[in-house]
């Protein structure tokens, strides 16, 4: 076992044998193209990230929040990336890599639909046939994204097993891959899965912190005291942290979805949260040893979060390692806090964040006085995809910060639901 498959004791390659050759092939391609820039792969990747993706993206001084918290708050604007989330950094990298590897077909799983849309966009851009697996529950709660994938020419395959969310979609994509591995690349959507995925996805996403680290020095004249990013699988998290890891004074906060509660229901096998870093135990899922939401037997729990993109029982192995090493602090906020933060950022800064990203802002609200003078928060995506969910969940909760939506109902007449 070569050490670079591991992050401390996390990581590895726990996959059926039929996938191992593909993973070896991928490891080789990763080393050659990504690490060694063979055939100018990384140059092409960066060029496409700029021209197609819109990079570099701003680090914006957030005036209202800075005033509210008496702290210089900077927003890393991944919501402005083509497709509306940081996900394209990785999807574009992997689809391009698949092309360099001579693959003819792309598959991917998606939860919130953001990775699916990013992959569908990248595949359309690079002219690769593409199929996306998505749980039926997620299809229902993220319909606009389903639509976008189809519009981009991808197939969307509904996954009906389990609770029909991200975990099941990953499993189903692995099944497809086991069958088609010879001509197909599996574009995994976060820093999870068997090596080399966690490292590779992190490297594609590291452009976030590469830019942010320079930008914050330029704008604030110093390093930040804290960097916040929400953590589902952890790709935006690791992307936002990576280049800060060696900067000792910089606190790194991975904000997980606390859902409705941190307690688990062992009997039902349900965790009403997705806080695997905060509450999970070491185990093996989807190809890697990492922290998991599991029962004492090792059966994986159904996670739950109001934000589909955080709704995952595992987390990237590198992040698990960095938390164990106390380099990253694993924290979490609950659904209510995320929803309130969603409305706050929308109203006070004019930026509608993804519900995922809103978690980071929920943490900022709750702990701003412990974070120091300069704080960078990653806005991992925009919230257009979450409008339906937010309407529904906000009404359930009767939140103070929520706007009055009656104009939408009044005009619903001939239009149908939002």
């Amino acid at each position: 076992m070569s050490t670079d498959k591991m992050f401390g004791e996390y990581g590895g390659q726990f996959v059926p044998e039929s996938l191992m050759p593909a993973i070896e092939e991928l490891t080789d391609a990763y080393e050659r193209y990504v690490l060694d820039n063979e055939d100018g792969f990384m140059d092409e990747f960066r060029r496409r990230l700029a021209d197609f993706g819109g990079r570099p993206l701003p680090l914006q001084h957030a005036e209202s929040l800075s005033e509210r918290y008496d702290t210089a708050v900077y927003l890393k604007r991944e919501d402005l990336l083509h497709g509306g989330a940081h996900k394209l950094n990785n999807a574009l990298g992997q689809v391009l890599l698949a092309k360099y590897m001579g693959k003819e077909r792309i598959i991917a799983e998606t939860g919130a639909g953001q990775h699916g849309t990013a992959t569908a966009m990248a595949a359309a851009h690079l002219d690769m046939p593409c199929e996306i697996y998505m749980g039926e529950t997620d299809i229902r709660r993220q319909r606009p994204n389903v639509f976008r994938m189809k519009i981009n020419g991808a197939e969307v395959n509904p996954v009906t097993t389990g609770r029909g969310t991200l975990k099941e979609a990953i499993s189903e994509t692995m099944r497809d891959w086991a069958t088609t591995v010879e001509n197909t690349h599996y574009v995994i959507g976060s820093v999870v899965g068997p090596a080399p995925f966690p490292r590779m996805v992190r490297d594609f996403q590291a452009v976030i912190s590469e830019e942010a680290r320079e930008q914050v020095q330029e704008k604030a004249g110093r390093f930040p005291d804290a960097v916040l990013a929400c953590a589902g699988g952890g790709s935006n998290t690791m992307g936002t942290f990576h280049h800060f890891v060696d900067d000792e004074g910089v606190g790194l906060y991975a904000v997980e979805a606390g859902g409705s509660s941190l307690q688990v229901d062992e009997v039902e096998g349900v965790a009403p949260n997705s806080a695997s870093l905060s509450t999970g135990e070491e185990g093996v899922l989807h190809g890697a040893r990492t922290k998991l939401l599991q029962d004492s037997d090792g059966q994986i729990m159904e996670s739950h979060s109001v934000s589909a993109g955080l709704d995952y029982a595992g987390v990237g192995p590198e992040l698990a390692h960095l938390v164990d090493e106390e380099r990253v602090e694993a924290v979490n906020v609950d659904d209510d806090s995320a929803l309130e933060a969603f409305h706050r950022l929308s109203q006070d800064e004019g930026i509608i964040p993804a519900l995922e990203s809103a978690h980071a802002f929920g943490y900022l609200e709750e702990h701003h006085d412990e974070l120091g003078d300069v704080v960078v928060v990653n806005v991992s995506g925009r919230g257009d995809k979450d409008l339906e969910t937010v309407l529904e969940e906000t009404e359930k909760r009767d939140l103070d910060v929520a706007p009055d939506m009656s104009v939408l109902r009044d005009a619903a007449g001939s239009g149908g639901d939002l």
Partner: protein
Amino acid sequence: MGLERVFADGPAFVPYVAAGDPSYEESLEYVEALERGGADVIELGLPFSEPIAEGSTIQEAVVRSLEAGMTPDRYFEFVEDLDVDVPLVCMTYYNLVAQYTNDETGERGPRAFAERAAEVGIEGFVVVDLPAEEAGPLREACDEFGLDLVFIIAPTTKGDRLEQMREHVSGYVYVQARLGVTGAREDVSDQTEESLARVADWDVPKAVGFGIKTGEHAERIVAAGADGIIVGSALVDIIAAGADGEYPFTETAQRLESKARELKEGALAGAEKRAATEQSD
């Protein structure tokens, strides 16, 4: 001399079912029916919530078993309760092995798991998501408790990987007949012969699985050189039909038994055919 022994006297029929599917009691009967039908080794699935290598037939079996309350501890009780003479192999996913905890000693992980398995009479493991590279700790535990660790050779396994696995394997090698996930198929894959050819000179028995559905498939595969056939979904389909109420319980047991017999006989016929071909060569 471990699991290899069962392949000594002719082609082995190796059925797979998920323990506890659709209920503890019924499942005990079903396993016994398989033995009556001619099983030489039984791969008994310990169900994991994320069966990433299974097609829908076995996925659903796993769900039925878990919903009926199957757990690793119950699984070991199940094995103890079973009244069969053929060797049993535990087929599962690695997280259940890694998390297994010996309630008395508090020890957790592969060694605790292997110890308990050996205690109840299990003779080997197939851990679907544990490639040779990650198998160190379990391999050691198997050695300590005299268990076989069966690896799967996929159609994509070639070159160095193949050599490496040759060294680690014991009991038998599980030759995956085709790419993809488990599930009964209408045809025999062309990849089977190729795969068998790649392991022809290995000195462990070669059992072929993935997609075998009929006696005729069994015959062709054994004729092509397999020392055994592994059949899961085609049997689980029968259990599923029973679980759906299409057949009463006793009839389901009989159907399993006769399917087993069909497969075993197919394997035997295949062995004869092969013997005939070999002679005429």
